[in-house]
């Protein structure tokens, strides 16, 4: 199986512009409504910003929580909500540690990020003006962190 790619946010770069939220709602729903964005910007005053989407957990709590087996995991690791089974009780939303699911009160059904499966690069990642978002594997994230740490050591030694 291919390594799972997720959306990671560099909190140093994220400015809290919420353009990712606009772009997501427009691309996925053809409407401007950031409360319908799959990615969520959170600011903790005074200086912390992050944008979070689904993390493709190894053991998704949303799936466990759903009493109707409406949440299923797909081959890329993302989860999908079966509209026929879901009745909008919101337990999956409560269970998720990241606030990555939301409730569509018009369709009476939960929804979450599908990583823009039809696009190569997810729309939010594409649009973020500060390149704060990356669509990448956790392994790559680790690799980058290692490189960064090593660079720092080299700089300190030289």
């Amino acid at each position, binding site marked *: 199986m291919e390594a799972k790619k997720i959306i990671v946010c560099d909190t140093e770069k994220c400015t809290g512009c919420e*353009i990712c939220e*606009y772009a997501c709602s*427009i691309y996925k729903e053809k409407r*401007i*409504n950031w409360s319908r964005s799959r990615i969520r910007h959170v600011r903790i005053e005074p*200086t912390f910003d992050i944008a979070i989407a689904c993390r493709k957990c190894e053991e998704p709590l949303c799936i466990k929580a759903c009493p109707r087996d409406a949440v299923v995991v797909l081959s890329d690791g993302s989860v999908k909500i079966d509209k026929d089974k879901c009745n909008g009780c919101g337990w999956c939303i409560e269970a998720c540690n990241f606030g990555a699911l939301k409730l569509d009160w018009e369709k009476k059904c939960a929804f979450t990020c599908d990583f823009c499966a039809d696009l190569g690069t997810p729309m939010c990642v594409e649009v973020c003006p500060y390149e704060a978002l990356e669509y990448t594997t956790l392994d790559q994230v680790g690799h980058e962190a290692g490189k960064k740490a090593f660079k720092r050591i080299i700089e300190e030694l030289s």
Partner: protein
Amino acid sequence: MKGYTGKYLRVDLTTGDIRTERLPEEVARKYLGGYGFVGWTLYEEVPAGTDPLSPENVVCLWTGPVAGTPVPVSSKYIMGALSPATGFIGFGIASGGIASELKAAGFDGIVVTGKAPSPQYILVQNGRAELRDASDLWGKTTWETEELIREELSDDEVRVSSIGPAGELLSVLANVTNDRNRQVGRSGIGCVMGSKNLKAIAIRGTGDVEVADLDGLMEFSRDLYKRCRGPATEKYRVFGTPANMLVHNRLGCLPSYNFQKGTFEKVEDVSGERMLETMVKKITACPSCPIACDHINEVKEGPWAGTVSSMDYESLELLGPNCGVSDLNAITKAVELCDTLGIDTISAGVTVSWAMEAFERGLLTSEDVDGLDLRFGNGEAMVEAVRRMSLREGNLGALIADGSARAAEKLGKGSEKFAMVNKKLEWGAYSLRPLQTATLGFATSVRGACYLRSGSYQPDVKGTVDRYHLDSSRGKVVFEGENLYAIIDSLIICKFTRGIYKDNTEFTKLIKLVTGFDWSVEEMIKTGERIHNQAKLFNVRFGAKRADDYPPPRAFEEKLYDDVSDGAIIIRAEYDEALSGYYEERRWDEEGIPTKALLEELGLDATLGV
């Protein structure tokens, strides 16, 4: 109607009556939004002779058509009222989440009248509004108020615009703060809210925002995001607006020592470069902004360690060099006090610098200033003066709480000569004598001493005109700038993005994508002209005359000597000529009153015209 919800709220605080009113399409086409709507509301609703602090004054909050859309940087709203500071039109524009939230809640604006019997706040939620008790919030800072309202409603995403203690204490310098660091800063809107017992407006919306052409708008927005990351905005991205410190110092137009000089010997210590190196903890953006100019400073050591506040050029300059202060920690603390206690940083800086000059000249005794060593350069004294001013504390607070013009009236002894005001409002951070086109633009602005109405400093700074002299042709520069800026302020988009639009046809394109209005550039500029004249007409109703359009005496009476200027001064005859040139361009008479013919052509009320 696209780009507008077509509805606004009318709140009568005296009776508690709240109703939804329809926004007529003719009004949208005539005044576009934002600034245009403020002018329209005030002209319709505030009669001649109204006392700014009486229940008869109106305070309004408007968005423009782009609010809530992905257009960069569209997250702006405007608040307006008859200004208690100037006695003329008062308004201020701020970013943050208020505008988009109000749109998503289903309203374009809120018009507030009357006076509440006890402290209250307005809560707007999807399609409805209510008045809520704010007794427990009275006396709280703006930051506390935001937090407390979010707690009360158990909703982290509620956006709050509130006043601090300064607004409650009716300081005419009082502002309105939202999202911690964003302010409706100028002309005392916070004071009017305080006079109405209105502590805050809290907004939460989750509806759709509709535009005429969504796909087209997103495509255009994405193109604009890219341009926003280009050279036109680079300096703002890296250093924020404090990038201007060194630039202005080099040009000799960086006010220092209460505008006595145009350069500052310790400018390196307060430059944008130094600030980025030593103070900046985070760079943040307003919603929908790809530029991110907001630089959040943190004080790391000393008596104010742990202070965190947002720093922009005007605040840094006027609380810094203009008070002779070169200590970034002190300036960061002073900004925090202004933002939390609810006072405008520009007016605060220029008022403290006035008091410092009066103190150094021996016009203020030690007792008058509560024993502070209020000499230029004393950062600690500057911080304490700001605190006392905001809370009306002690002799000093009582003297300067309402700004330098009123303090100088009280003190007399010639101190009026160095109150750096126009229309009783403090001057922005641009030196007067070496930027004479700018000075003309600031002094003729409807809001008073305003650097944001025409961009009139640009030709001076760019060197396309002789910035040390004036002639009648400068009127045209201000006229053209004002008409376009009236559109920018009515849409409302951030002025830092103006440079990314290739030409005026791109503004008409934007208007079309959002509202569907198919305007030619001429129609758009005519609309800008109408909006500006409507605001001016409001001032005429309140007695505006030629004499109100002059800079403070220092500009004409003292020569400027510093590292760049060698005796720069504004020659009164040249200024007179430039002012007449401006009036002529505007088709106003020699007293600055619009002609009837012009008003009729613009579709405005011609009764006050000549």
